[in-house]
Every structure is written in structure tokens, then in C-alpha cells.
């Protein structure tokens, strides 16, 4: 086809016009609370023309004029075809935000089209060049969709927690922050959770349980991992293969017997019970991750230590452990995350509100008597510490996990 380039420019432009308009429209709605209906048809047309102009002018020479011209044309088209209401809102409703919306629409459209249509001619294109453009468009869409998909729930979680009951009932679409009400009023859900709902205690309990689980897990799994990776004994190969199988035993199968036995032993409604169960579920995976790392350490260093008169314990403490700090860090983080996020056993075992973990505490908020913003504030309180720690040590965690082992 002789004019493939032009066709691609039109289609690519139309896609971006539609997507960018949808995203700006919905964002505008969520930010202002006014229902903006994005005029998709007009935007698609504007985008297509924008892409075509960019290719037409840009194929000759890359300059600012082409961009400004294309943007102007897109602006005129989108305004004209939406009857001067690109978001289907009268111009006197939130005019400033509408202006910003149009500006963002044109900017994002220009950015996307410029990247996707870079080097596209008006005339015929080879298969290679066509596929390059397809992939650019697909990737661009991927970025937009994934980012919204991941970020939107977290955004809704945080914003809902900052609302009051009346605001939520009045307009569920308004997810903006009203800063004029003052800090105490803004964070009233959090204040109430900490003062009336005992969340300070839950936070402490969760922290203590998680840290204790990490310590116990390391105490058990470090010697075990060392034995599996360094010492020869009958059944070693079988053990190192089967240790991960333990991790596939579903918790729900264990919960009924543990519930029955712990009830009779008086361990059920206690943190001791949790601190017996949590390490048991994390030790196998910790052992697996650690033995993979230990195996990668040069054995010569340890042998030298043994020759120089250190005992095995001395070798582990003075040579192996200092060398495996990164692995220890990632295992600790990982176990911390599991223990902090654990829900099933905390839910089954704990009845006493004085020793609730955060997970258990947030579930207790899920009733019709507790308003939704409190539930979301509880979710935020449970999420922030673990996300903070994760972001701080992200590199460690990802490397440790992908190098040694896996988990679900």
C-alpha cells in the first residue's frame, strides 16, 4: 500500500486521542467531583488529524512549529466537534480545571503521538518499521493501563480514608482532598482508629509478632540451610528438593487440626500460638532461599577457617553469616512481609481485641456499624509500614527472591 504511513498516523492518532481523552476525563471527574463525560468521538478525530499533521510536517523536518500547529488543529477540532464542551460540561463549571484538562489532553496527545510516530513517513513502510510503530503503541497503552490498574485502588483507598461520611454519601466520585478543613479534620478517621479502636495496640502487636517471627525463622533456618548446603549426610539431595514441597501444603488444611489442638492446649487465643505457627510456615521457604545462597559462597573460605582451628559454629558465625548479609536481609524482609500480611491464622486464632494483629483488627472493622472511611484508614495503616519497608529495600528483595526461590 502506498500510503501506509498516513494510515498508521491516522489510526495511531485516533487511538491516542480516545485514550488520552478518557483518562483526562475520568481524572477530571475524580479530582473535581463534577461528572465529566469525555467526548471520545471528537477526541479521536482530533487525535487522528494531530497524528497526520505531525507525520506530514515532521517527515520533512523536526521542529516546534509542527508540534504547535498540530496541537492547535487538535484543539480546534476537539472543541468544534464537541460543541465547545470536550468534557460535556458547561464552560462556567470548574473552568480552571477544564482548562487544565484541555491543556493536559493536548500535551499528552502530542507526547504520545510524537513518540509513537517518530520517523514515520507519509508513504509506504516496511514490515519492520510498521511493527516498530505497533509495538510503541502497544507499550504506550500498556503503561497507561497498568499504571491506572495498579495505582487506582491505592488512590481510592487513601482518598476514601480522608473523607467524612457526609462527603462520601453526597458524591462518591469526588476523590479530591479538601485542605481547607484543617489537618485534624482531614485525618479524623485515623485519629478515631487510634483513640477509639485500639489501633495503636494492633500496630505494636503486628510489629512484635512480625519481628519475632523473623528472628525465630532465622534461628531455625540458618543452621538448617547450612547443613543442607555444606554438610554431607544421607538424604541430603532428597531434603533439598522436598523442602519447598512443605510450602505447598495449604494453610486451610492445617487450620482445623491446629484450631482443635490449640483450643485444648489453651494456645489458640494467644500470641504464643501465632508465634508457633508463623515460623513453621516460613522456615521452609527461608531455608530454601538461604541454602541456595550458601551454596554459591566459596567453600574454600570456610575450609581455611576450619584449618585455622575454628569450630563449625565459629565458621558459620564468623565467615558464612557475614558473607551472606544480603541474603539474610532479603529473607528477613520476605518473612516479615509474610508475617505482617498473614490473615488466616490471625483471623481463626485471635478473639481477644487486646492482642489483635493489624490484619485481624482491620477485619473487625468490616461491619455495617463502622463507616467505610474507617475501614479504608485501617487498610492504609496496615499497608503503609510494609510498603515503606518494601520500597526501602526493594532491590534486596527482588534479587534475593529471584536468585534463590519463589513464593505465592
Amino acid at each position, binding site marked *: 500500500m502506498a500510503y501506509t504511513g498516513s494510515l498508521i498516523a491516522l489510526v495511531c492518532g485516533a487511538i491516542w486521542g480516545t485514550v488520552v481523552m478518557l483518562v483526562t476525563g475520568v481524572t477530571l*471527574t475524580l479530582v473535581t467531583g463534577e*461528572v465529566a*463525560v469525555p467526548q471520545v468521538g471528537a477526541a479521536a478525530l482530533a487525535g487522528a488529524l494531530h497524528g497526520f499533521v505531525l507525520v506530514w510536517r515532521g517527515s520533512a523536518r523536526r521542529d516546534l512549529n509542527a508540534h504547535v500547529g498540530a496541537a492547535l488543529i487538535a484543539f480546534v477540532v476537539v472543541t468544534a466537534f464537541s460543541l465547545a464542551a470536550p468534557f460535556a460540561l458547561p464552560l462556567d463549571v470548574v473552568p480552571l480545571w477544564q482548562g487544565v484538562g484541555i491543556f493536559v489532553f493536548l500535551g499528552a496527545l502530542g507526547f504520545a503521538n510524537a513518540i509513537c510516530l517518530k520517523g514515520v513517513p507519509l508513504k509506504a513502510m516496511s514490515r*519492520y518499521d510498521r511493527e516498530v510503530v*505497533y*509495538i510503541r503503541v502497544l*507499550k504506550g497503552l*500498556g*503503561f497507561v493501563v*497498568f499504571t491506572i490498574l*495498579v495505582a487506582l485502588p491505592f488512590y*481510592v483507598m487513601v482518598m*476514601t480514608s480522608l473523607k467524612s461520611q457526609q462527603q462520601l454519601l453526597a*458524591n*462518591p466520585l469526588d*476523590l479530591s482532598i479538601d485542605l481547607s478543613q484543617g489537618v485534624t479534620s482531614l485525618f479524623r478517621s485515623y485519629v478515631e482508629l487510634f483513640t477509639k479502636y485500639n489501633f495503636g495496640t494492633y500496630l505494636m502487636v503486628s510489629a512484635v509478632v512480625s519481628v519475632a517471627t523473623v528472628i525465630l525463622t532465622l534461628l*531455625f533456618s540458618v*543452621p*538448617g540451610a547450612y*547443613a543442607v548446603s555444606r*554438610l554431607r549426610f544421607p538424604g*541430603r539431595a532428597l*531434603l533439598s*528438593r522436598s523442602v*519447598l514441597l512443605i510450602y*505447598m*501444603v*495449604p*494453610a*486451610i*488444611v*492445617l*487450620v*482445623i*487440626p*491446629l484450631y*482443635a489442638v490449640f483450643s*485444648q492446649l489453651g494456645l489458640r487465643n494467644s500470641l504464643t500460638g501465632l508465634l*508457633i505457627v508463623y515460623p*513453621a510456615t516460613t*522456615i*521452609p521457604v527461608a*531455608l530454601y532461599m538461604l541454602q*541456595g545462597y550458601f551454596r554459591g559462597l566459596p567453600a574454600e573460605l570456610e575450609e581455611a577457617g576450619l584449618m585455622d582451628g575454628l569450630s563449625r559454629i565459629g565458621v558459620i558465625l564468623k565467615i558464612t553469616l557475614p558473607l551472606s548479609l544480603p541474603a539474610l536481609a532479603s529473607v528477613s524482609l520476605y518473612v516479615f512481609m509474610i508475617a*505482617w*500480611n498473614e*490473615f*488466616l491464622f490471625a483471623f481463626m486464632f485471635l478473639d481477644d481485641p487486646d492482642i489483635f494483629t493489624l490484619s485481624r483488627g*482491620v477485619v473487625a472493622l*468490616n461491619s455495617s456499624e463502622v463507616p467505610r472511611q474507617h475501614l*479504608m484508614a485501617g*487498610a*492504609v495503616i496496615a499497608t503503609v509500614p*510494609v*510498603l515503606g519497608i*518494601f520500597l526501602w529495600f*526493594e532491590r534486596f528483595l527482588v534479587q534475593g527472591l*529471584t536468585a534463590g526461590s*519463589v513464593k*505465592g
Partner: protein
Amino acid sequence: MTAVENMAEGRSAVPPKGIGPMQRREARLAFLMLAPTFLIILLIVMGPLLANFWISVKPVGLADLRPPSVLVNERVRGKPQAAGDAVTLEYRLRNSSQDKEIRNVVLKDSLPDGFTLGSTPEACTINGRQLTCAFGDVPAKWRERLRLEGTADAPFLALERPGRETEPEVAGDADNILTNFEFTFENFRKVFDGDEFWGVLRVTFYYTIFGTVGALVLGLFAAQLLNTSFKGRGFLRGLFLFPYVSPVIAVAFTWVVLFDPFSGTLNALLTKMGVVDAPINFFGQRAIEFSVFGLPLEFPLALTTVIAFEAWRYFPLSFMFILARMQSINTDMYEAAEMDGATPMQQFWYISLPQLLGILSVLFLLRFIWTFNKFDDIFLLTGGNAGTRTLTVDVYEQGFALSNLGAGAAVAVVVFVVLVTFATLFLHFSPKEEGL
């Protein structure tokens, strides 16, 4: 005879056979270091696994966990004013169980100071101030009043709360349903007889297969996005891992709030923008009915939403592993392909995908098993209602919601059997070179 001895005696040196003392010491050390791990796994994983089989063939309910016992309450009757006044000690005893007898019930208490017993009831014996009363076997719902008549002296009158000075002790043997040898296959019969079991099994497989595939496909796509380096890549990679790292309660409740039919943001958007006429109850509606060419079909709405949640929450895991694998692919191959004129799609299809096949199959099997095991997500999102009850949720439903631990354990046995089948497949097919 060891090799050293052989050499010392001038014979030809042969390598030692069997395990030498050093190796034995090494093995002993290894077992010592592994012992704590073995112990806790035996106690908390293997033990309960076996116990689950045991419970599944026993008629045990949630209420049976509190073993039947005799409850006792001690009171003083009469108001003695002066020494020598008559006073009565009364013990009220009761069998806490509604349907189980208790054998060899014995009450022990010491009489309060200054209390002189008039006549000893026939069930009781007095040894010094120690009172022992034997009641033999008592039936279910048994109640008894034991009255000790006597006189009070000065020390008794001085007591602040006579009768509460010592706690009476009651001993008795009762059948513990968990440890006796009464078996039944009623649990399994109930599980397999119900119409719903096969529905539950079908839902479980839909959920597992589509949840796994969804998470894998999303992960593969996300890994493609971040395989090139650009500004803000580290930020996006961190962001993409959020759903996996956050506590399940937080994200599950956020989805529930977001999709709420009455006050949820998503439904408000859809209705206000005119996409749908009425709000959709994503987590509460079992199915949407529609017809294609007059053929009535059902779209399982709640199940699909739950599967979408599963894919959303777990795509970061596959994303992380696929990205790590992609970055270890040698770039020479792409350069050679580029020289040969392979298009980007061809490069993906013929170079990247074959290289990723190993990690993809491992991830598929692992995620398949873990999705099958998953309980929290569905339990928090729908509670197993609206056609989303999987086997794991059924365990909870039978065992705790319906208070029939035995039936719950029976479902858990089914879960375990299916799982062992998967695990066998997993061990059989797991590619060795992926290091798993």
C-alpha cells in the same frame, strides 16, 4: 580395618568403604542442625496433616472442642450470728454437657475453719478437714445439690467470705470425641452427596486456571514494558509490585469499596457517564444472563471479578521472575536477529518466548498450586457467596460457619488429595535448569 591401618601394615592402600568416622560426625552435626526445623515442621505441618485425616472420619463439631466437665458452685446458707448457730454449706454441681456422661466424678474440698459438720452425707468421706465426695458416673444434663449441715464457731464467723476460702475441685473422666475410637464416614458422605460439591469443584478449577493464566499473561506483558531502560523505570517497577506486597485485607477491602454497587467509585463513574443504566453488583451478582442467537448463556460475574482480583494481585510475582529472566537473555541473539532482518514481533516470538518457556512453565505450576490453595482472597471479597465458593472456602464454611469440624476436615482431605496430584505432576515436569 581402616585405610590408615592398611597402609601401616604395608598392604596396598585401598579407599575406605562405607562411612568413615569423620563423615559420620559430619552427618550427625547436620542432623543436629536440622533437628529444630524437623521438629517444628513435624509438629505444625506434618502432625496437623495427619490429624486432619483423623478428624475427617470423626463426628466432631465446634462445640465438642470444649470437653464436658462438672461445674461446681459453693455457697453458705443461713446467717450464723453467734458461735453454735446452725449453718449449711451447699455445693451445686452440674454436667456441662447436654449429651455426654462423665465417669468417676469426685468432689474435693477442705472444710472452712470453725465449721463443725453435723452428719456426713453418704456420698462423702471426711479425712481431717478434707472432704471427698464420690458421685460415680453421672449422665448428661445431671444436676445435684450437696448440703452439709453443721454449726459455726468463732473462726468461721470471722471469715470474710466463708466457703470461698478454698476452691472445690471436681475430677471426672469424660469421652473426648477427638481422642476416642468412634469413627464415621458421615462427613465424606455429606460432602460428596450435596449437590453443591461438584459446583464448588468446578468453580475451584475455573478460578485456579483463569487466575493463574491471567496473572501470568499480565506479568509477561508488564515485563515486556519494563525490559527497556528509561527514566522512571525503577519507580514503575516498584509501583507494579504494590498489589503483591500489600496486605491482602487492605487490597481486598479496597476492591470491595471500589466496586460497591451503591457508593463505589467505579459504579458511580459508569452510571453517571451513561455507560450502564443501573449499578452493577460486581461481587454480589452470580451471573449475567444473555443470549447469543437465541442460545441462553450465563456470564459468571462475581467469579470473574474474583478472578480479576487474583490476576491483579499476583501478576507482580510472575512479572518479577519473567523480568529477571529476560534481563539474563544474551543480547547477542537479538543483534544477530536484527542483522538478519527479523522484525520486533518475530524477535519476541522466536527468541524471547522460547527462552522464557522454562520460567513460564515453572511459574504456571507454582501459581496453579498456590491459587488452588488460596483462601483469604475469596473469603474477604465475597465470603464464598454468589457462585464463588472454592474448595478452600468450603473448608471454612463447613468447619466453622456450620460448626461441623469433621465435614470441614473432610473437604480439606479432598483439597489435599487434589494437591498431591498436582505436586506429583510438578515434580515430574519441573525443568531442572531453572534451579527450582
